[in-house]
């Protein structure tokens, strides 16, 4: 591997496979992370995202494949020889050390002078807004504060890559939101490469430059938050990132502009695609409009459930020939009662068609 330091991606994973006895946790994952990027590995629990993070950190070794950091092959390097640091799900603060000594753990191993250590520890604590907490013990801190110390401890070494393993999952919602904006600020200020693992799609959308969606040990899609949300590559991504109606349809005229798709006896326009035959129609609930029946041939259904959402209502509408009730988020307007017959419409360009294997589902 002779990639020059300048052009090589900060992190490069080549065909990484991880097997635990007879279970395959990761299947040939290849991924590049650029310098300064904030990349989120998103997926349900058990999808392999944490395993991949631990492989980058060096806690697990891949069964196959290679891990490169800044162009250097580190596949066989132990964790303490890698220029990456990790923030764990639980803060994992050393309970026998105070805040300052926790943060100083890494610099001390690097053999920095006492004055130097004090300076970098002070800087790191200031970055996470915990100046003045130097001499507290971990049990004297709140959950959010503990996680900030863990952050300071990980960034004090100025790692090439900061790994974050669901660092906010143990916190209350309010503190979680606060910490999210802290993380964004921190990323801007220190300008490092962050790899973040979460199962919370909202967190992923809010934080990342790029999202890598995982399922069953495979990458389902890589893209910007906007891409992943608006142009999901698979029904799984559509359902997992944001809320979505995923309806089995038949595309009758894929090439036409607009295309025409059919659900049972209903036909309606959709964006042009090079698919014909079975397909999935992905429809975000917020693009679905609900109106009284007009008889112009729009999709018709019966309101099965509704709930008040502050800015509007969210409906579940049972539609003939559609296996699951359709979800619709409607802002403002009057509410339709449960049992009422309504019509559902949407702009053709607001929906997305994905290929469907007719055998499955």
């Amino acid at each position, binding site marked *: 591997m002779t990639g020059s330091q300048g052009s090589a991606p900060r992190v490069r994973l*080549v*065909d990484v*496979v991880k097997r635990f006895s007879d279970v395959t946790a990761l299947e040939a994952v290849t991924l590049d992370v650029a310098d300064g990027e904030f990349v989120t590995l998103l997926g349900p629990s058990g999808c392999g995202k944490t395993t991949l993070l631990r492989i980058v950190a060096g806690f697990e*070794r*891949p*069964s*196959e*494949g*290679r891990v490169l950091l800044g162009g250097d092959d580190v596949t*066989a390097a132990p964790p303490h020889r890698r220029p990456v640091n990790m923030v764990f799900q639980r803060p994992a603060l050393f309970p026998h050390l105070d805040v300052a000594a926790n943060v100083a753990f890494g610099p001390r191993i690097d053999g920095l002078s006492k004055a130097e250590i004090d300076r970098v520890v002070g800087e790191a604590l200031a970055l996470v807004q915990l100046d003045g907490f130097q001499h507290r013990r971990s049990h004297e801190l709140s959950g959010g504060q503990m996680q900030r110390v863990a952050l300071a401890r990980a960034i004090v070494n100025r790692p090439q890559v900061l790994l974050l393993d669901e660092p906010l999952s143990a916190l209350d919602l309010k503190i979680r939101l606060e910490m999210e904006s802290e993380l964004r600020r921190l990323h801007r200020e220190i300008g490092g490469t962050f790899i973040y693992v979460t199962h919370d799609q909202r967190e992923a959308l809010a934080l990342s430059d790029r999202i890598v969606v995982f399922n069953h040990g495979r990458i389902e899609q890589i893209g910007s938050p906007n891409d992943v949300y608006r142009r999901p590559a698979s029904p799984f991504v559509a359902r997992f990132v944001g809320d979505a109606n995923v309806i089995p349809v038949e595309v009758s005229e894929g090439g036409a502009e607009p295309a025409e798709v059919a659900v049972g006896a209903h036909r309606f326009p959709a964006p042009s695609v090079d698919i014909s035959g079975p397909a999935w129609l992905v429809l975000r609930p917020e693009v679905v409009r609900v109106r009284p029946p007009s008889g112009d041939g729009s999709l018709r259904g019966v309101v099965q459930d509704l709930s008040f959402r502050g800015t509007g209502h969210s409906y579940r509408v049972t539609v003939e020939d559609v296996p699951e009730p359709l979800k619709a988020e409607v802002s403002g307007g009057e509410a339709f009662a449960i049992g009422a017959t309504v019509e559902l419409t949407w702009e053709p360009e607001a929906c997305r068609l994905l290929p469907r294997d007719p055998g499955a589902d």
Partner: protein
Amino acid sequence: MASLAEAPTRTTERAERRRAKPLIATLPAVAWLLAFFAAPLLVFLVYSFLTNELYAVGLPFTLEAYADALTSSLNRTLARNSLVVGLLTASTTVIVGLPIAYWLRFVARRSRLAVLFLITASMFASYLVRIYAWRTVLGSRGLINSALERTGLIDEPLGFLLYSRFAVVVALVHIFLPYVVLVLFAGMGPVSEGLLESARDLGANASLLWRRVLLPIMAAPAFSAFVFVFILSSADYVTPQFLGGKDGVTLGVQIQQNFIAVGNWPLAAATSFLMLLAFVAVYAIGSFALRRLRLHDIRLES
């Protein structure tokens, strides 16, 4: 890049080796136990097959010692005594230990730490001192008899108290009860109060709660405690010497005497291994029963 494909088997092997590496730290202790635990037992096993001559043992290998051990009618009586002492001690400790563990887990409040401290402390109370203490309490001029005589309840000392199987079992229960309580308390640790509450909520009274919920859950730890106490108490050779009468002398005492006084090492070895075989049998039968009752592996959500 061509090297990427051939890596897998080597890496797996290396991963296996890496996960095994910390085991190197166990080597000193392992070596110690191989040299002074496994090796002596093996030598002892070999001795059980040797021929006993006057003040010496030697070849050829023979089963004579086993034949002697099995045919001696004295041995059979003593083995029965050992069995009875072991069973009585083990069942008493477990039966008494269960409610104490329950108390520690579910009833105790502030006093839990103190009682745990006392029970664990008593575990470390000297073995010989306990035996001595019971000799003073149970003796014919001991505290119970003299107290009873003083109050006029009896005219002469109760002979069955000391130098009897009763005395041996009392002292052994005293020695092993703390172990059993701690094992059962640990076993009861994962049982949540919610589990008991939901059982009560579903209409279980105390007896149903024990029969249908606690005893099945506690079967496995209670069995381990039972086997532990059974083995150690039926092979005890000191307590029966000081407290046992005719029916209190056990096979352990006989093995020790055979060894020290008579000097018949093969016979002592053969008898020991027969006893060990019996212990293994008790353990195997018990485990089999637990398995058949599907009580061997109850996992509690925590």
